[in-house]
Protein backbone atom coordinates (compact mmCIF):
# COMPACT_ATOMS: atom_id res chain seq x y z
CA UNK A 1 0.00 0.00 0.00
CA UNK A 2 1.59 3.30 -1.06
CA UNK A 3 1.58 6.49 0.92
CA UNK A 4 -1.16 8.13 -1.12
CA UNK A 5 -3.63 5.33 -0.44
CA UNK A 6 -2.71 5.46 3.21
CA UNK A 7 -3.48 9.16 3.36
CA UNK A 8 -6.70 8.75 1.39
CA UNK A 9 -7.86 5.97 3.64
CA UNK A 10 -7.01 8.00 6.72
CA UNK A 11 -9.89 10.20 5.58
CA UNK A 12 -12.21 7.78 3.75
CA UNK A 13 -12.41 5.05 6.38
CA UNK A 14 -13.83 7.30 9.13
CA UNK A 15 -16.19 8.91 6.63
CA UNK A 16 -17.88 5.55 6.25
CA UNK A 17 -19.33 5.98 9.72
CA UNK A 18 -22.45 8.02 10.24
CA UNK A 19 -21.32 9.34 13.66
CA UNK A 20 -18.09 10.67 12.16
CA UNK A 21 -19.95 12.57 9.45
CA UNK A 22 -22.24 14.09 12.06
CA UNK A 23 -19.30 15.01 14.26
CA UNK A 24 -17.62 16.68 11.30
CA UNK A 25 -20.72 18.67 10.49
CA UNK A 26 -21.16 19.89 14.06
CA UNK A 27 -17.49 20.67 14.62
CA UNK A 28 -17.02 22.59 11.39
CA UNK A 29 -20.25 24.58 11.72
CA UNK A 30 -19.68 25.39 15.39
CA UNK A 31 -16.01 26.11 14.73
CA UNK A 32 -16.75 28.57 11.94
CA UNK A 33 -19.50 30.37 13.87
CA UNK A 34 -17.22 30.76 16.89
CA UNK A 35 -14.27 31.74 14.73
CA UNK A 36 -16.11 34.57 13.04
CA UNK A 37 -17.21 35.97 16.37
CA UNK A 38 -13.77 35.48 17.89
CA UNK A 39 -12.39 38.22 15.63
CA UNK A 40 -14.41 40.84 17.48
CA UNK A 41 -13.77 39.18 20.85
CA UNK A 42 -10.03 39.52 20.25
CA UNK A 43 -10.26 43.15 19.22
CA UNK A 44 -12.66 44.31 21.93
CA UNK A 45 -10.75 42.34 24.57
CA UNK A 46 -13.57 40.12 25.71
CA UNK A 47 -11.75 36.82 26.22
CA UNK A 48 -12.68 36.70 29.88
CA UNK A 49 -16.28 37.39 28.94
CA UNK A 50 -16.21 34.33 26.65
CA UNK A 51 -14.89 32.24 29.51
CA UNK A 52 -17.61 33.58 31.79
CA UNK A 53 -20.51 32.97 29.44
CA UNK A 54 -19.37 29.46 28.64
CA UNK A 55 -19.20 28.42 32.29
CA UNK A 56 -22.38 30.23 33.22
CA UNK A 57 -24.53 28.14 30.87
CA UNK A 58 -23.99 24.97 32.91
CA UNK A 59 -27.06 25.33 35.17
CA UNK A 60 -29.13 26.12 32.08
CA UNK A 61 -28.05 22.92 30.37
CA UNK A 62 -28.80 20.84 33.46
CA UNK A 63 -32.21 22.43 33.97
CA UNK A 64 -33.05 21.82 30.31
CA UNK A 65 -32.37 18.10 30.80
CA UNK A 66 -34.43 18.08 33.99
CA UNK A 67 -37.44 19.65 32.29
CA UNK A 68 -36.99 17.92 28.97
CA UNK A 69 -36.39 21.15 27.03
CA UNK A 70 -33.94 21.57 24.16
CA UNK A 71 -30.54 22.13 25.78
CA UNK A 72 -30.12 25.40 23.90
CA UNK A 73 -33.09 27.02 25.64
CA UNK A 74 -31.68 26.78 29.15
CA UNK A 75 -28.16 27.52 27.98
CA UNK A 76 -29.26 30.68 26.18
CA UNK A 77 -31.26 31.92 29.15
CA UNK A 78 -28.33 31.45 31.51
CA UNK A 79 -25.74 32.70 29.03
CA UNK A 80 -27.57 35.92 28.25
CA UNK A 81 -28.76 36.22 31.86
CA UNK A 82 -25.23 36.11 33.23
CA UNK A 83 -24.07 38.71 30.70
CA UNK A 84 -26.89 40.99 31.83
CA UNK A 85 -26.07 40.31 35.48
CA UNK A 86 -22.39 41.12 34.92
CA UNK A 87 -23.36 44.37 33.21
CA UNK A 88 -25.78 45.34 35.97
CA UNK A 89 -23.39 44.63 38.86
CA UNK A 90 -20.61 46.37 36.99
CA UNK A 91 -22.65 49.53 36.50
CA UNK A 92 -23.97 49.70 40.03
CA UNK A 93 -20.90 48.88 42.13
CA UNK A 94 -17.32 50.04 42.32
CA UNK A 95 -15.93 46.52 41.82
CA UNK A 96 -13.88 46.25 38.62
CA UNK A 97 -15.33 44.37 35.69
CA UNK A 98 -12.94 41.40 35.75
CA UNK A 99 -13.80 40.75 39.39
CA UNK A 100 -17.53 40.95 38.66
CA UNK A 101 -17.08 38.49 35.81
CA UNK A 102 -15.14 36.17 38.08
CA UNK A 103 -17.83 36.24 40.75
CA UNK A 104 -20.77 35.72 38.41
CA UNK A 105 -19.39 32.88 36.31
CA UNK A 106 -18.00 30.84 39.16
CA UNK A 107 -21.28 31.24 41.05
CA UNK A 108 -23.24 30.08 38.01
CA UNK A 109 -20.90 27.17 37.43
CA UNK A 110 -21.17 26.16 41.08
CA UNK A 111 -24.96 26.26 40.80
CA UNK A 112 -24.67 23.95 37.82
CA UNK A 113 -22.50 21.49 39.73
CA UNK A 114 -24.98 21.43 42.61
CA UNK A 115 -27.90 20.87 40.25
CA UNK A 116 -26.09 18.05 38.45
CA UNK A 117 -25.53 16.23 41.71
CA UNK A 118 -29.31 16.24 42.25
CA UNK A 119 -30.32 14.99 38.79
CA UNK A 120 -30.77 11.33 37.95
CA UNK A 121 -27.78 9.81 36.24
CA UNK A 122 -28.88 9.99 32.61
CA UNK A 123 -27.29 13.42 32.32
CA UNK A 124 -23.64 12.71 32.01
CA UNK A 125 -21.56 15.45 33.62
CA UNK A 126 -18.57 14.39 31.58
CA UNK A 127 -20.39 14.92 28.30
CA UNK A 128 -21.57 18.39 29.26
CA UNK A 129 -18.20 19.51 30.54
CA UNK A 130 -15.97 17.88 27.96
CA UNK A 131 -18.28 17.46 24.98
CA UNK A 132 -19.37 14.31 23.21
CA UNK A 133 -19.37 15.22 19.58
CA UNK A 134 -19.27 11.58 18.47
CA UNK A 135 -22.60 10.94 20.15
CA UNK A 136 -24.79 13.97 19.40
CA UNK A 137 -28.52 13.50 18.89
CA UNK A 138 -30.49 14.68 15.86
CA UNK A 139 -32.17 17.29 18.01
CA UNK A 140 -28.82 18.69 19.08
CA UNK A 141 -27.63 18.83 15.47
CA UNK A 142 -30.67 20.85 14.46
CA UNK A 143 -30.23 23.25 17.35
CA UNK A 144 -26.61 23.79 16.40
CA UNK A 145 -27.42 24.37 12.72
CA UNK A 146 -30.23 26.82 13.44
CA UNK A 147 -28.28 28.82 16.01
CA UNK A 148 -25.13 28.92 13.87
CA UNK A 149 -27.31 30.12 11.00
CA UNK A 150 -28.69 32.89 13.19
CA UNK A 151 -25.19 33.99 14.22
CA UNK A 152 -23.78 33.96 10.71
CA UNK A 153 -26.78 35.84 9.30
CA UNK A 154 -26.59 38.51 11.99
CA UNK A 155 -22.86 38.89 11.42
CA UNK A 156 -23.27 39.05 7.64
CA UNK A 157 -25.84 41.78 8.09
CA UNK A 158 -24.12 43.81 10.80
CA UNK A 159 -20.39 43.14 10.50
CA UNK A 160 -19.44 46.67 9.49
CA UNK A 161 -21.32 48.18 12.43
CA UNK A 162 -19.73 45.67 14.80
CA UNK A 163 -16.29 46.59 13.53
CA UNK A 164 -17.07 50.27 13.89
CA UNK A 165 -18.14 49.55 17.47
CA UNK A 166 -14.93 47.64 18.17
CA UNK A 167 -12.73 50.33 16.66
CA UNK A 168 -14.37 53.55 17.78
CA UNK A 169 -17.63 53.37 19.76
CA UNK A 170 -17.49 57.14 20.34
CA UNK A 171 -17.52 57.81 16.63
CA UNK A 172 -20.44 55.39 16.24
CA UNK A 173 -22.31 57.37 18.88
CA UNK A 174 -21.46 60.69 17.20
CA UNK A 175 -23.03 59.42 13.98
CA UNK A 176 -26.22 58.40 15.75
CA UNK A 177 -25.37 54.67 15.70
CA UNK A 178 -26.05 53.33 19.19
CA UNK A 179 -22.93 51.59 20.55
CA UNK A 180 -24.85 50.14 23.49
CA UNK A 181 -27.13 48.30 21.06
CA UNK A 182 -24.13 46.97 19.15
CA UNK A 183 -22.50 45.87 22.39
CA UNK A 184 -25.68 44.06 23.35
CA UNK A 185 -25.83 42.43 19.93
CA UNK A 186 -22.23 41.25 20.24
CA UNK A 187 -22.84 39.86 23.72
CA UNK A 188 -26.02 38.15 22.53
CA UNK A 189 -24.14 36.57 19.64
CA UNK A 190 -21.44 35.46 22.06
CA UNK A 191 -24.06 33.70 24.19
CA UNK A 192 -25.48 31.96 21.13
CA UNK A 193 -22.12 30.81 19.76
CA UNK A 194 -21.10 29.46 23.13
CA UNK A 195 -24.24 27.33 23.09
CA UNK A 196 -23.47 26.22 19.54
CA UNK A 197 -19.95 25.15 20.44
CA UNK A 198 -20.95 23.32 23.62
CA UNK A 199 -21.96 20.28 21.59
CA UNK A 200 -18.61 20.15 19.85
CA UNK A 201 -16.09 20.61 22.62
CA UNK A 202 -17.97 20.91 25.93
CA UNK A 203 -18.25 23.75 28.40
CA UNK A 204 -14.64 23.76 29.55
CA UNK A 205 -13.11 24.20 26.11
CA UNK A 206 -15.71 26.46 24.47
CA UNK A 207 -13.75 29.55 25.40
CA UNK A 208 -10.88 28.36 23.22
CA UNK A 209 -13.15 28.37 20.18
CA UNK A 210 -14.11 32.03 20.71
CA UNK A 211 -10.55 33.21 21.30
CA UNK A 212 -7.92 31.17 19.45
CA UNK A 213 -9.01 31.47 15.80
CA UNK A 214 -9.42 35.25 16.03
CA UNK A 215 -6.15 35.69 17.89
CA UNK A 216 -4.39 33.53 15.28
CA UNK A 217 -5.84 35.50 12.39
CA UNK A 218 -4.90 38.77 14.12
CA UNK A 219 -1.26 37.67 13.97
CA UNK A 220 -1.54 37.01 10.26
CA UNK A 221 -3.19 40.07 8.76
CA UNK A 222 -3.81 43.79 9.11
CA UNK A 223 -7.15 43.68 7.31
CA UNK A 224 -10.33 42.90 9.16
CA UNK A 225 -12.15 41.13 6.30
CA UNK A 226 -9.17 38.84 5.81
CA UNK A 227 -9.08 38.24 9.52
CA UNK A 228 -12.63 36.86 9.35
CA UNK A 229 -11.73 34.52 6.49
CA UNK A 230 -8.47 33.30 8.03
CA UNK A 231 -10.13 32.77 11.39
CA UNK A 232 -12.93 30.70 9.87
CA UNK A 233 -10.44 28.68 7.81
CA UNK A 234 -8.28 27.94 10.84
CA UNK A 235 -11.31 26.76 12.80
CA UNK A 236 -12.64 24.59 9.98
CA UNK A 237 -9.25 22.98 9.41
CA UNK A 238 -8.81 22.38 13.14
CA UNK A 239 -12.26 20.78 13.32
CA UNK A 240 -11.50 18.42 10.45
CA UNK A 241 -8.07 17.52 11.80
CA UNK A 242 -9.46 17.02 15.29
CA UNK A 243 -12.32 14.75 14.26
CA UNK A 244 -10.23 12.49 12.02
CA UNK A 245 -7.28 12.28 14.36
CA UNK A 246 -9.48 11.47 17.32
CA UNK A 247 -11.08 8.63 15.33
CA UNK A 248 -7.72 7.06 14.64
CA UNK A 249 -6.15 7.77 18.00
CA UNK A 250 -9.28 7.10 20.02
CA UNK A 251 -8.84 10.22 22.19
CA UNK A 252 -11.02 13.22 23.11
CA UNK A 253 -12.32 14.95 19.96
CA UNK A 254 -12.92 18.32 21.62
CA UNK A 255 -9.44 18.17 23.10
CA UNK A 256 -7.85 17.51 19.72
CA UNK A 257 -9.84 20.26 17.97
CA UNK A 258 -8.64 22.81 20.49
CA UNK A 259 -5.09 21.44 20.33
CA UNK A 260 -5.14 21.82 16.56
CA UNK A 261 -6.28 25.44 16.95
CA UNK A 262 -3.55 26.04 19.51
CA UNK A 263 -0.99 24.56 17.10
CA UNK A 264 -2.17 26.98 14.42
CA UNK A 265 -1.82 29.82 16.89
CA UNK A 266 1.69 28.72 17.86
CA UNK A 267 2.68 28.58 14.21
CA UNK A 268 1.30 32.06 13.56
CA UNK A 269 2.92 33.39 16.72
CA UNK A 270 6.31 32.11 15.63
CA UNK A 271 6.21 32.42 11.87
CA UNK A 272 3.63 35.04 10.86
CA UNK A 273 5.21 36.97 7.97
CA UNK A 274 4.63 40.35 9.55
CA UNK A 275 4.12 39.78 13.26
CA UNK A 276 6.00 36.50 13.87
CA UNK A 277 8.45 36.31 16.78
CA UNK A 278 11.05 34.50 14.67
CA UNK A 279 11.37 37.27 12.12
CA UNK A 280 11.28 39.95 14.80
CA UNK A 281 14.40 38.37 16.30
CA UNK A 282 16.01 38.17 12.88
CA UNK A 283 15.21 41.78 12.02
CA UNK A 284 16.63 42.93 15.37
CA UNK A 285 19.78 40.88 14.79
CA UNK A 286 20.16 42.33 11.33
CA UNK A 287 19.83 45.86 12.69
CA UNK A 288 22.35 45.13 15.44
CA UNK A 289 24.77 43.64 12.92
CA UNK A 290 24.43 46.66 10.70
CA UNK A 291 24.98 48.98 13.66
CA UNK A 292 28.08 47.01 14.67
CA UNK A 293 29.65 47.16 11.22
CA UNK A 294 28.78 50.82 11.04
Amino acid at each position, binding site marked *: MDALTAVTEWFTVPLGFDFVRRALLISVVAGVACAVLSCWMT*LVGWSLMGDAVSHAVLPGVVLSYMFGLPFAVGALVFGAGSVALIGAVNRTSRVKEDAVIGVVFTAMFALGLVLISRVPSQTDLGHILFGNVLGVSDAAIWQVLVLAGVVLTAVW*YKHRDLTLY*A*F*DPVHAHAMGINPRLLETLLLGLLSVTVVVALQAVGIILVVAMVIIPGATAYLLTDRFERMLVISAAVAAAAAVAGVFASFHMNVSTGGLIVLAQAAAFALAYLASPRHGVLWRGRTARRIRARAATG
Partner: protein
Amino acid sequence: MSAAIEVTDATVRYGDVLALDAVSLSLAPGRICGLLGTNGSGKSTLFKTVLGLVPADHGSVRILGHTGATARRRGLVGYVPQSEQVDWAFPVRVRDVVMMGRYGHMGRRRRARPADREAVDHALARTRLSDLADRQIGALSGGQRKRAFVARAIAQNADVLLLDEPFAGVDKRSESHISELLLQLRQEGHTLLVSTHDLAQVPALCDEAVLLQRRVIAHGDPAEVLRPETLMEAFGIHTDGRGAAWTP
Protein backbone atom coordinates in the same frame (compact mmCIF):
# COMPACT_ATOMS: atom_id res chain seq x y z
CA MET B 1 -30.51 81.68 12.98
CA SER B 2 -29.79 79.17 15.71
CA ALA B 3 -26.33 78.73 17.15
CA ALA B 4 -24.14 75.91 15.80
CA ILE B 5 -23.35 74.80 19.32
CA GLU B 6 -25.33 75.98 22.31
CA VAL B 7 -24.35 74.66 25.71
CA THR B 8 -26.42 76.02 28.55
CA ASP B 9 -25.37 75.77 32.17
CA ALA B 10 -23.76 72.33 31.87
CA THR B 11 -22.39 70.74 35.02
CA VAL B 12 -20.58 67.42 34.70
CA ARG B 13 -19.14 65.24 37.43
CA TYR B 14 -17.12 62.02 37.33
CA GLY B 15 -17.93 60.62 40.74
CA ASP B 16 -16.49 63.22 43.10
CA VAL B 17 -14.57 65.10 40.42
CA LEU B 18 -16.30 68.23 39.21
CA ALA B 19 -15.14 68.44 35.58
CA LEU B 20 -17.45 71.18 34.27
CA ASP B 21 -19.09 73.78 36.44
CA ALA B 22 -22.10 75.56 34.94
CA VAL B 23 -20.55 75.97 31.52
CA SER B 24 -22.48 78.01 29.00
CA LEU B 25 -21.21 78.50 25.49
CA SER B 26 -22.80 79.71 22.29
CA LEU B 27 -21.03 79.38 18.98
CA ALA B 28 -22.30 80.95 15.76
CA PRO B 29 -22.22 78.88 12.55
CA GLY B 30 -19.29 79.13 10.16
CA ARG B 31 -16.68 79.99 12.75
CA ILE B 32 -13.60 78.41 14.24
CA CYS B 33 -13.49 78.52 18.01
CA GLY B 34 -10.31 77.63 19.88
CA LEU B 35 -10.86 75.82 23.16
CA LEU B 36 -7.98 76.55 25.52
CA GLY B 37 -7.18 75.29 28.97
CA THR B 38 -4.62 73.39 31.01
CA ASN B 39 -4.49 69.60 31.26
CA GLY B 40 -7.54 68.47 33.16
CA SER B 41 -9.40 71.74 32.63
CA GLY B 42 -12.33 69.90 31.07
CA LYS B 43 -11.79 70.35 27.32
CA SER B 44 -12.35 66.72 26.43
CA THR B 45 -15.24 66.60 28.85
CA LEU B 46 -16.86 69.55 27.09
CA PHE B 47 -16.54 67.70 23.77
CA LYS B 48 -18.09 64.62 25.32
CA THR B 49 -20.90 66.71 26.72
CA VAL B 50 -21.63 68.22 23.31
CA LEU B 51 -21.58 64.69 21.89
CA GLY B 52 -23.94 63.47 24.62
CA LEU B 53 -21.38 60.92 25.82
CA VAL B 54 -21.27 62.00 29.43
CA PRO B 55 -24.55 62.84 31.10
CA ALA B 56 -24.69 66.40 32.39
CA ASP B 57 -25.99 66.67 35.96
CA HIS B 58 -27.63 69.76 34.80
CA GLY B 59 -27.90 71.89 31.68
CA SER B 60 -28.62 71.26 28.04
CA VAL B 61 -26.96 71.03 24.66
CA ARG B 62 -28.39 72.03 21.31
CA ILE B 63 -26.72 71.69 17.94
CA LEU B 64 -27.98 73.85 15.07
CA GLY B 65 -31.23 74.14 16.96
CA HIS B 66 -31.68 70.37 17.40
CA THR B 67 -31.35 68.21 20.47
CA GLY B 68 -28.10 66.26 20.62
CA ALA B 69 -29.75 62.98 19.66
CA THR B 70 -31.46 64.44 16.59
CA ALA B 71 -28.30 66.22 15.51
CA ARG B 72 -26.30 63.01 15.76
CA ARG B 73 -28.88 61.01 13.86
CA ARG B 74 -28.84 63.60 11.09
CA GLY B 75 -25.07 63.42 10.87
CA LEU B 76 -24.56 67.03 11.90
CA VAL B 77 -21.69 66.33 14.31
CA GLY B 78 -18.22 65.06 13.47
CA TYR B 79 -15.59 64.17 16.05
CA VAL B 80 -11.82 63.87 15.87
CA PRO B 81 -10.68 62.13 19.07
CA GLN B 82 -7.58 62.78 21.14
CA SER B 83 -5.08 60.14 19.94
CA GLU B 84 -4.84 58.35 23.28
CA GLN B 85 -8.33 56.99 22.74
CA VAL B 86 -7.51 55.07 19.55
CA ASP B 87 -6.42 51.42 19.22
CA TRP B 88 -3.64 51.90 16.67
CA ALA B 89 -3.06 48.16 16.27
CA PHE B 90 -6.61 47.62 15.00
CA PRO B 91 -6.63 45.78 11.65
CA VAL B 92 -8.14 48.51 9.50
CA ARG B 93 -6.60 50.49 6.67
CA VAL B 94 -6.59 54.28 6.52
CA ARG B 95 -9.20 54.00 3.77
CA ASP B 96 -11.47 51.87 6.00
CA VAL B 97 -11.28 54.41 8.81
CA VAL B 98 -12.21 57.25 6.48
CA MET B 99 -15.03 55.12 5.05
CA MET B 100 -16.46 54.79 8.57
CA GLY B 101 -17.20 58.50 8.35
CA ARG B 102 -19.71 57.65 5.61
CA TYR B 103 -21.72 55.12 7.65
CA GLY B 104 -24.33 57.70 8.57
CA HIS B 105 -25.01 58.22 4.86
CA MET B 106 -25.37 54.52 4.08
CA GLY B 107 -28.09 51.91 4.38
CA ARG B 108 -28.36 49.49 7.27
CA ARG B 109 -25.67 47.16 6.01
CA ARG B 110 -23.27 50.08 5.44
CA ARG B 111 -22.40 49.01 1.93
CA ALA B 112 -20.38 51.66 0.14
CA ARG B 113 -21.86 53.17 -3.00
CA PRO B 114 -19.83 54.98 -5.65
CA ALA B 115 -20.68 58.32 -4.04
CA ASP B 116 -19.21 57.08 -0.75
CA ARG B 117 -16.01 55.91 -2.42
CA GLU B 118 -15.73 59.25 -4.16
CA ALA B 119 -16.17 61.12 -0.87
CA VAL B 120 -13.48 58.97 0.72
CA ASP B 121 -11.03 59.49 -2.15
CA HIS B 122 -11.72 63.20 -2.01
CA ALA B 123 -11.16 63.37 1.75
CA LEU B 124 -7.93 61.37 1.42
CA ALA B 125 -6.70 63.70 -1.30
CA ARG B 126 -7.48 66.79 0.75
CA THR B 127 -5.55 65.45 3.71
CA ARG B 128 -2.73 64.28 1.37
CA LEU B 129 -3.14 60.69 2.42
CA SER B 130 -4.02 59.20 -0.97
CA ASP B 131 -0.68 57.40 -1.22
CA LEU B 132 -1.02 55.97 2.26
CA ALA B 133 -4.65 54.90 1.97
CA ASP B 134 -3.92 51.18 2.00
CA ARG B 135 -1.68 51.26 5.06
CA GLN B 136 -2.83 49.90 8.38
CA ILE B 137 -3.94 52.87 10.49
CA GLY B 138 -1.12 52.46 13.03
CA ALA B 139 1.55 52.44 10.31
CA LEU B 140 1.34 56.23 10.04
CA SER B 141 3.28 59.01 11.72
CA GLY B 142 1.60 61.09 14.42
CA GLY B 143 0.71 63.90 12.01
CA GLN B 144 -0.60 61.49 9.40
CA ARG B 145 -2.75 59.75 12.00
CA LYS B 146 -4.34 63.06 12.93
CA ARG B 147 -4.97 63.79 9.28
CA ALA B 148 -6.62 60.39 8.83
CA PHE B 149 -9.19 61.28 11.47
CA VAL B 150 -9.67 64.72 9.98
CA ALA B 151 -10.24 62.93 6.66
CA ARG B 152 -12.90 60.81 8.32
CA ALA B 153 -14.65 63.96 9.51
CA ILE B 154 -14.40 65.49 6.02
CA ALA B 155 -15.87 62.34 4.48
CA GLN B 156 -18.69 62.52 7.00
CA ASN B 157 -19.36 66.09 5.87
CA ALA B 158 -20.80 67.08 9.25
CA ASP B 159 -21.75 70.72 9.73
CA VAL B 160 -20.26 70.92 13.20
CA LEU B 161 -16.78 69.49 13.76
CA LEU B 162 -15.29 68.84 17.18
CA LEU B 163 -11.51 68.39 17.09
CA ASP B 164 -9.80 67.35 20.32
CA GLU B 165 -6.16 68.47 20.11
CA PRO B 166 -5.59 67.94 16.40
CA PHE B 167 -2.17 69.57 16.72
CA ALA B 168 -0.77 67.52 19.61
CA GLY B 169 2.46 65.78 18.64
CA VAL B 170 2.40 67.17 15.13
CA ASP B 171 5.34 68.87 13.41
CA LYS B 172 5.21 72.39 11.95
CA ARG B 173 4.51 71.24 8.40
CA SER B 174 1.65 68.95 9.35
CA GLU B 175 0.39 71.63 11.68
CA SER B 176 0.21 74.32 9.03
CA HIS B 177 -1.34 71.83 6.65
CA ILE B 178 -4.04 70.90 9.16
CA SER B 179 -4.68 74.60 9.97
CA GLU B 180 -5.05 75.34 6.29
CA LEU B 181 -7.57 72.51 5.97
CA LEU B 182 -9.57 73.74 8.95
CA LEU B 183 -9.68 77.25 7.48
CA GLN B 184 -10.93 75.81 4.18
CA LEU B 185 -13.60 73.83 6.00
CA ARG B 186 -14.76 77.01 7.69
CA GLN B 187 -14.84 78.70 4.29
CA GLU B 188 -17.18 75.94 3.15
CA GLY B 189 -19.53 76.78 6.01
CA HIS B 190 -18.54 74.24 8.66
CA THR B 191 -18.35 75.24 12.31
CA LEU B 192 -15.28 74.03 14.19
CA LEU B 193 -14.56 73.73 17.87
CA VAL B 194 -10.84 72.98 18.24
CA SER B 195 -9.02 72.35 21.49
CA THR B 196 -5.31 73.12 21.50
CA HIS B 197 -2.36 73.84 23.73
CA ASP B 198 -0.56 75.77 21.02
CA LEU B 199 -1.47 79.37 21.83
CA ALA B 200 0.83 80.88 19.22
CA GLN B 201 -1.35 79.54 16.45
CA VAL B 202 -4.70 80.62 17.89
CA PRO B 203 -4.91 84.19 16.52
CA ALA B 204 -4.26 83.07 12.93
CA LEU B 205 -6.62 80.09 13.05
CA CYS B 206 -9.49 81.03 15.32
CA ASP B 207 -12.27 83.56 14.98
CA GLU B 208 -12.86 83.34 18.69
CA ALA B 209 -11.43 81.56 21.70
CA VAL B 210 -12.74 80.07 24.92
CA LEU B 211 -10.60 79.81 28.02
CA LEU B 212 -11.82 76.90 30.09
CA GLN B 213 -10.89 76.03 33.64
CA ARG B 214 -13.82 73.93 34.71
CA ARG B 215 -15.79 77.13 34.10
CA VAL B 216 -15.65 79.41 31.09
CA ILE B 217 -13.10 82.00 32.22
CA ALA B 218 -13.20 84.05 29.05
CA HIS B 219 -14.83 83.84 25.66
CA GLY B 220 -14.29 86.26 22.81
CA ASP B 221 -11.76 87.60 20.38
CA PRO B 222 -8.54 85.51 20.54
CA ALA B 223 -6.43 88.61 21.16
CA GLU B 224 -8.65 89.50 24.12
CA VAL B 225 -8.73 86.02 25.58
CA LEU B 226 -4.98 85.62 25.25
CA ARG B 227 -4.16 88.95 26.87
CA PRO B 228 -1.70 88.36 29.72
CA GLU B 229 -4.07 90.19 32.07
CA THR B 230 -6.90 87.78 31.26
CA LEU B 231 -4.69 84.79 31.78
CA MET B 232 -3.28 86.25 34.97
CA GLU B 233 -6.69 87.13 36.25
CA ALA B 234 -7.92 83.68 35.43
CA PHE B 235 -5.11 81.75 37.05
CA GLY B 236 -3.63 84.25 39.47
CA ILE B 237 -0.13 83.57 38.15
CA HIS B 238 2.53 85.69 36.56
CA THR B 239 3.19 85.36 32.89
CA ASP B 240 6.15 86.51 30.92
CA GLY B 241 3.94 88.65 28.76
CA ARG B 242 3.54 86.07 26.03
CA GLY B 243 0.79 84.27 27.84
CA ALA B 244 2.61 80.96 27.75
CA ALA B 245 3.47 80.47 31.40
CA TRP B 246 0.33 78.54 32.23
CA THR B 247 0.54 76.00 29.45
CA PRO B 248 2.08 72.68 30.38
